[in-house]
């Protein structure tokens, strides 16, 4: 009798790539809900539209590359890209803005750079940077958080109208106060007021990191902790990023003068900090792979994040910091290869070059 002949191991673990991606999607829920609560329907509409566009773009790319479409779509990776990019784009953005970002992410940054697993840069962040540079006004006008604005947030129908017809089509968006500078913006522009004065003058600062922002950050932190417990990624990169951001902001805080950079707590809970730490920095494809490499990778992202937030010309710096460090990941891997069982520590300074 002839039996099946295959090599060991004959069993495999419970996780598969599709499940990993689904877990990541699930983990975004608390943060997305917080954003939705504070900024309205625009957040969810971004996500839905981005997902549709992304599935279409992925299917197109797979068809062009003659890959099995259903097999690759079932790994959910493109949905993760779509959700991450949609969260980064300001709510109540027009459909074309989201579509351009998604198409660039999926077609160029993912498939043209080699497809899943081969892309050197985080596709969502590439899409985000392309939008930020091409459409700076659209990309930097955030809606006001619910509590800082005394009018009504757009309804679901109104939000959908905005998606397809633009903000000008809706009278509500001509009202003053429906969009506001984010706390990070204000802090960056400020050179005359102390931090304490800023807090009393601007309603959007909220408790710690900005109205809405602090809760969104706490939500993403919760999602990140969930992923850590599910062993989807290790603590090394996100924690080292948060620690280095804390250290940087503590160093430049100077207890709140007019040139202060803001408190560590403000930086941890403002902008894209937690979202970046647990959903962008942890992208396995584009980050360093050894644990030591991940620690360095995360720490440098934290440093860059703070530097660009304070002295760069963009209000938030997650995308730039991550992309800059994506470049360095292979190099980090080369120098942080773990010590193999039975081997002495490798001395890379004696070997040739950083290949």
């Amino acid at each position, binding site marked *: 009798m002839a039996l099946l002949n295959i090599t060991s191991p004959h*069993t495999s673990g419970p996780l*598969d790539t599709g499940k990993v991606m689904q877990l990541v999607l699930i983990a975004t829920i608390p943060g997305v809900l917080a954003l939705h609560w504070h900024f309205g329907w625009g957040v969810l509409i971004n996500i839905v539209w981005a997902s549709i566009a992304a599935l279409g773009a992925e299917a197109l790319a797979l068809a062009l590359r003659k890959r099995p479409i259903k097999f690759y779509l079932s790994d959910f990776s493109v949905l993760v890209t779509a959700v991450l990019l949609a969260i980064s784009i300001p709510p109540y953005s027009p459909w074309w803005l989201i579509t351009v970002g998604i198409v660039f992410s999926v077609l160029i940054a993912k498939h043209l750079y080699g497809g899943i697993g081969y892309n050197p840069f985080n596709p969502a962040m590439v899409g985000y940077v392309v939008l930020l540079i091409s459409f700076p006004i659209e990309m930097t006008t955030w809606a006001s958080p619910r509590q800082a604005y005394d009018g009504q947030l757009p309804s679901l129908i109104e939000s959908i109208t905005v998606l397809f017809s633009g903000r000008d089509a809706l009278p509500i968006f001509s009202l003053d106060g429906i969009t506001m500078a984010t706390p990070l913006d204000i802090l960056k522009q400020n050179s005359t007021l102390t931090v304490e004065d800023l807090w009393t003058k601007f309603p959007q600062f909220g408790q710690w990191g900005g109205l809405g922002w602090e809760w969104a950050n706490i939500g993403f932190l919760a999602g990140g902790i969930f992923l850590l417990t599910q062993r989807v990624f290790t603590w090394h990169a996100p924690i080292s990023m948060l620690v280095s951001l804390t250290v940087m902001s503590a160093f430049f805080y100077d207890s709140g003068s007019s040139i202060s950079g803001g408190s560590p707590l403000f930086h941890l809970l403002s902008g894209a900090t937690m979202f970046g730490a647990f959903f962008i920095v942890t992208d396995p494809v584009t980050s360093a*792979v050894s644990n030591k490499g991940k620690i360095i990778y995360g720490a440098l992202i934290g440093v860059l994040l703070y530097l660009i937030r304070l002295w760069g010309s963009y209000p938030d710096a997650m995308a730039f910091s991550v992309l800059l460090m994506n470049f360095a990941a292979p190099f980090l891997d080369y120098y942080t290869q773990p010590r193999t069982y039975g081997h002495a520590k490798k001395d890379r300074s004696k070997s040739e070059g950083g290949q």
Partner: protein
Amino acid sequence: MRKVWDIHGGIHPLENKDQSNQLPIEFAGIPEQLVFPLSQHIGAPAVAIVGVGQKVLKGEMIAEAKGLVSVAVHASTSGEVIAIQDNPVPHPSTMSAPCITLKSDGKDQWIEHQGINNYLNLDRTELVNHIRNAGIAGMGGAGFPSAVKLSVRGEQTVETLIINGTECEPYITSDDCLMRERADEIIAGIEILRYLINPMKETLIGIEDNKPEAIAALNRAAEGTAINVVSFPTKYPSGGEKQLIQILTGKEVPAGGLPGDVGIVCQNIGTTVAIYRAIAHGEPLISRITTVTGNACDHNTNYEVLLGTPVSYLLDHSGFHQKKCSRLIMGGPMMGFTLENSNVPIVKTSNCILAPTVDELPPPTPAQACIRCGMCAEVCPASLLPQQLYWFSRGKEYEKLEDHNLMDCIECGACSYACPSNIPLVQYYRASKADIREQKQDAIKAEQSKMRFEARQERLDRQEAEKEAKRKARKLAAEERARDNNNPDPIQAAIDRAKAKKASVKSEKPAAENATESLDRARLKEVLANVEKRLVTAKEKLKQAEQQGSDNVEAFRTAVEKTNSKYLKTKQELITFNAVNPALSDSSSMPAEKKILTGDAAQDAIAKALAKRDAASSMTDEERLQNAVSAVTKRLQKAQQKLAEEQRQEGEHIDLLTNAVAKLDLKLADADAAYQQFQNNNHD
């Protein structure tokens, strides 16, 4: 509680051990036919010592070990040898190999055998010989000859003896049941091992904490002995030899080394029982405990199986349903290999037959893309970066693979298990390892042929140089003779020399022969001295290599042998020559005819010398000197080229070649000077 260390990584697959460890060990029975592969171990296959048709008894040796690293095979029941031929054997490649087939007579009649009453009275070497004759190979996995493990000590002292009762693979319970039921035999076997290798520090039995009954049984049996039962948290692959050593001692076996390098010897639980039975009862290794499990079998249990029993026989005893079976595995689900055919026999290393259903171990799903999630690196017990190795394997980047220590992969399968994309990582590594080994073999072969070629070239050059030197010496001798006879005026001398030469060719043949003869003798002596010198150097080098344990010991040994034979040959030649041409001083007065008559060899030599002389004399001196200069120049150039090449490649022969170039330089200067002098003389 003794301290235990943790290993890096590891996984926790479903253990699935309860199916097979509930019942006591059963004797599987005597099949009608048994098949004994001649190679059930690492090392040279055994050699059959029985013939077809021969009747053998249970326990009778039917194949003997060939060489030191080899293991004998014994009949596991009485019967008749009916075939010695290639049969399918349990091997991942589904290959066939030489086997002895035995038809059992059902009597199960033992050969006369006797245990050793008090092995403490026995010399250690003798005891190891008993173990060797009992055909015992490591029963854990690889099947390394136990006698070799126990005898090769050298100067290493063993600190720790470790007995591996980990059994970390899912499903397998053969060691578990053995420990539960035969703890006394295990402890007795370990005592024999302790006597043999005399561990200075401690003796440990390592068991995962998922086998409480086994731990309790061994603790009871080990009471009052120096043997320490250590349990540690269950985690795959704690049972790997290197991993277990790390868990129990915190030490790591150096890469490419053996446990002995850190003062440790490891033995499997099953092996200790086999050693006990061999020493205490005189029984060779003819049976083992094998787990038969998996949902495609109704009856999951451990059998005491006669070696050579076909797997199909065991399956028949266990209510096997082939239709339900997804694949048949020998070993566990992590490292076992599939059997294409259930006719293969149980061998010394067969610890488990796993017959899972499709639900239990579904066929592998298609591999998705690697997303570099790093889960493989998290679980790798060798702290490798499996995802990097995977990329390099796909790209066939062998240098990077070696740089990332692919060769330290123990193929435990943890990375493949953890991989969310279901990539068969281990298979990539196996293929790459095989490729690298092949490449290395090719490189060695190329290096050897290069060495052979260079040695030949060197020999030819040397012969050329010797010839040249001889010619020069002959010329000098002739000149001196001429100078002695005539006046010292250089011009006149040159003319006289030419005349004398012509004359000597024509009329003074005997004199020329005498000169040749004395030169031949001198040459032989010189060659002999040279060879002797070379022999001494070669011997020194060999000694050095042996002390340093260099890889080239074999090469040096051959060199010494060759040089030695050359030395003897040259000596023989000289003796023959002396015998043929007795006292040189007398020969000048002897008539030429007499010498010519002394033998064909001498005659040949003389004829050759004459021919050479004629050829040489037909050249003018100027031409000859010119020739010499150009020849040496050419050789110098060649040598310089070689040296440059060697320097570029940073080879080992730079010193040698530098010397050679310097020598040739001197020679060229000499030849040049001679030529200049000649010209000056002629133009004066």
